[in-house]
């Protein structure tokens, strides 16, 4: 009997110890390392030299700072075109500075999860973390992210030569720079050049609809709908439709991009204010006339049967497959998706300039044309030992020379405007022309604390309406109430 009681005691003690460990582990300590590393007095040689290109300056200073010490830079990045493009140029950095770069690639699935958990733990294991734009608000506001202002002052990244809006991506609520854009990508349209540019098709279309289409100036509410309907056809004569006019994304999270790309073009305002919600008031703004109109035009295309049947499972990764296997005449996706099929040497059936063309996405007559950019943005962790070197690395890879180098040799979307307009670069990347068009009107996904959740709510109701389970009015009402509830959950 006594032994039994003793056993029970030991057991409870063990469980208690474990619980207590957890209690001290939980709660999330917050270490804000905001203080600048002022010990580095800016000597002449650690400042920019006149006429020196940005990349040379970055490597020179980094090399000087690292003299005599064995330094390794730890970068967490995604195993995606941005990550792969970076991996190819890292040897250049290592050779010029002698600083080794250790990279840890994550998948997109893991990235969102790992990044947030790393930060929440208070002691991230990396110097630089690269993450996807649309989950970035919680990251940007995290106190474990380094304030970049002091370094930006010392070593100017020349934001004014970058695409418009890229600097703002990285600015937190308190006005300080926390993130540094590395890789933007614009949402564009790919189309079957062999069919769309075919004069026979053009005249048949004119006969049926009474006007001539201009692929570079479609409108969401008229010519795009007509074009999608026109090209939906039965190509092999078995009585069943096997080719569709268009392919857009309706999968969870991805559907939000589909919606946003249209909404931007329907705004009566030509200046981006608040899309989806007012983050200050915690109120959803989608349930109005514009929101309804966008929804209706989108669902009209679905109901006309002009979209590939698998749209509910179609996300960013599936568009290339649907288009390049010859299922649709038009498809929408960020620029990088199309890199594998933009040259004729590709393995895909539908590839090369004869078959594939690129254009800006449709707009609305009389309103400014715009599109959205997504992208990857990096920040420096608050507990790093080498903030200057980390910053210089980020500066180096966004410098005009390296930016151009990556655009010429990998699937890289440049940050510098000049790169998009360089004819040599465009020759290698036909999508850049469409990506750069109307770039003064680029918009990006909103920096909301709960953007991921909002996106999921929107996506799910889009899927419901597309399947005929809900009407547009019901969907908008539900979207509004569900998003408002989510704002309440985070205290707004």
């Amino acid at each position, binding site marked *: 009997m006594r032994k039994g009681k003793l056993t029970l005691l030991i057991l409870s003690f063990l469980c208690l110890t474990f619980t207590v460990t957890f209690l001290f582990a939980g709660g999330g300590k917050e270490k804000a390392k905001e203080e600048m590393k002022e010990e580095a007095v800016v000597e002449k040689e650690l400042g920019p030299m006149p006429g020196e290109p940005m990349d040379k300056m970055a490597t020179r200073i980094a090399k000087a700072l690292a003299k005599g010490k064995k330094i390794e830079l730890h970068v967490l990045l995604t195993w995606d075109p941005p990550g792969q493009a970076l991996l190819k140029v890292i040897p250049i950095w290592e050779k010029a500075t002698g600083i080794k770069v250790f990279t840890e690639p994550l998948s997109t699935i893991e990235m969102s999860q790992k990044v947030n958990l790393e930060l929440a733990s208070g002691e991230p294991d990396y110097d630089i973390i690269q993450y996807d734009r649309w989950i970035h608000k919680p990251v940007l506001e995290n106190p474990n992210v380094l304030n970049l202002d002091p370094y930006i002052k010392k070593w100017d990244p020349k934001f004014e030569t970058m695409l418009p809006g890229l600097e703002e991506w990285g600015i937190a609520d308190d006005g300080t720079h926390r993130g540094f854009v590395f890789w933007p990508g614009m949402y564009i349209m790919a189309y079957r050049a062999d069919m769309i540019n075919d004069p026979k098709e053009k005249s048949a279309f004119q006969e049926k609809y009474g006007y001539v289409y201009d692929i570079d100036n479609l409108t969401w509410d008229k010519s795009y709908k007509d074009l999608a309907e026109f090209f939906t056809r039965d190509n092999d004569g078995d009585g069943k439709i096997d080719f569709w006019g268009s392919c857009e994304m309706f999968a969870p999270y991805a559907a939000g991009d589909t919606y946003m790309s249209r909404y931007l073009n329907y705004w009566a305002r030509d200046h981006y204010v608040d899309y989806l919600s007012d983050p200050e008031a915690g109120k959803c703004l989608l349930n109005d006339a514009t929101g309804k109109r966008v929804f209706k035009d989108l669902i009209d295309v679905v109901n006309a049967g002009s979209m590939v049947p698998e749209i509910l499972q179609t996300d960013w990764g599936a568009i*290339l497959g649907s288009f390049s296997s010859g299922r649709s005449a038009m498809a929408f996706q960020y620029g990088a998706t199309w890199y594998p099929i933009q040259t004729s040497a590709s393995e895909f059936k539908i590839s090369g300039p004869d078959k594939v063309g690129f254009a800006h996405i449709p707009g609305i007559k009389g309103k400014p044309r715009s599109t959205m950019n997504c992208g990857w943005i990096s920040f420096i962790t608050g507990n790093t030992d080498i903030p200057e070197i980390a910053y210089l690395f980020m500066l180096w890879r966004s410098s005009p020379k390296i930016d151009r180098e990556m655009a010429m040799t990998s699937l890289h979307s440049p940050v510098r405007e000049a790169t998009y307009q360089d004819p040599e670069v465009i020759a290698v990347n036909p999508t850049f022309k469409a990506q750069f068009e109307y770039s003064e009107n680029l918009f990006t996904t909103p920096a909301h604390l709960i953007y991921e959740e909002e996106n999921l709510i929107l996506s799910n109701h889009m899927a419901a309406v597309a399947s005929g389970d809900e009407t547009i009015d019901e969907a908008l009402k539900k979207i509004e109430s569900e998003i408002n509830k989510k704002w309440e959950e985070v205290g707004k």
Partner: protein
Amino acid sequence: MKTNKILMNMKYFLIAIFLVLFLSPIIFQIITGFKTLGQIYDPDQIVSVKNLSLSIWKDAVQYQKFLHYLKNSLITSITSTVIVMFFAIPAAFGLAKLKMGEKTRKNLSFEFLAMRMLPGIAVIIPIFVVYKKIGLLYTLPGLILIYIVFNIPLATWLLEGFFKEVPNEISEAARIDGCNPRTELLRIIIPLSAPGLLSVMILTYIFTWNEYMFASILTTSSCRTLPVWAAYVTYQHFIINYSMLGVSSTVMIVPVIIFAILMQKYLVRGLSFGAIKE
């Protein structure tokens, strides 16, 4: 008789159909690992086996470093299995053979079984937080520890069944000879239930090889296991890489399939545990 022959032939025919239904998806998946993306997305080549190539595999070895993940999976599974046996064999022995209150025996046995019902999702958050604190996060030992804990219940329960099959008379005879429990375990029970032991080891190995959820949250590229790698190499951001899906699936399932076919007898024993009573 004629009807018997017809019946037999019908049976074989039905079996053949089921075999096709069960095995053809796997074969298609394996073949995909030998096709390029362009071939996969070509509607005319969906079931063709022409022009297969090893280029994807070359890419997987050189660029994706899958041998590293294979090594991780092997280390994890083998270590977990061995250590699980170290804990489960004595526990099962105690529950099956040693003297204790009958009520205690029933309760403890049930507790081990109940642990199997524990959904991983219920413990993963605290485990993550504590691992991060004590530095076990993103390490192989951390993952192995979790696998051990989650496989002991099933292993114990199965072993208990196998040990119970060893007739009590043998144990009693040994006791009369003055044998202590430790020797009884090592020299009598284990040799007599060796097939059962083997089947439990195989089952545990397969479970740890196949596990995904804990591995995806508790590992990073240095200690990543094959299932996690398969998931992430397939769903790249701008393309669903069906070629790599084929390669990674093949690497994951072919060893297990070969293992299962060779050890089929033991596997079946393990799975038919306690279900058959004389």
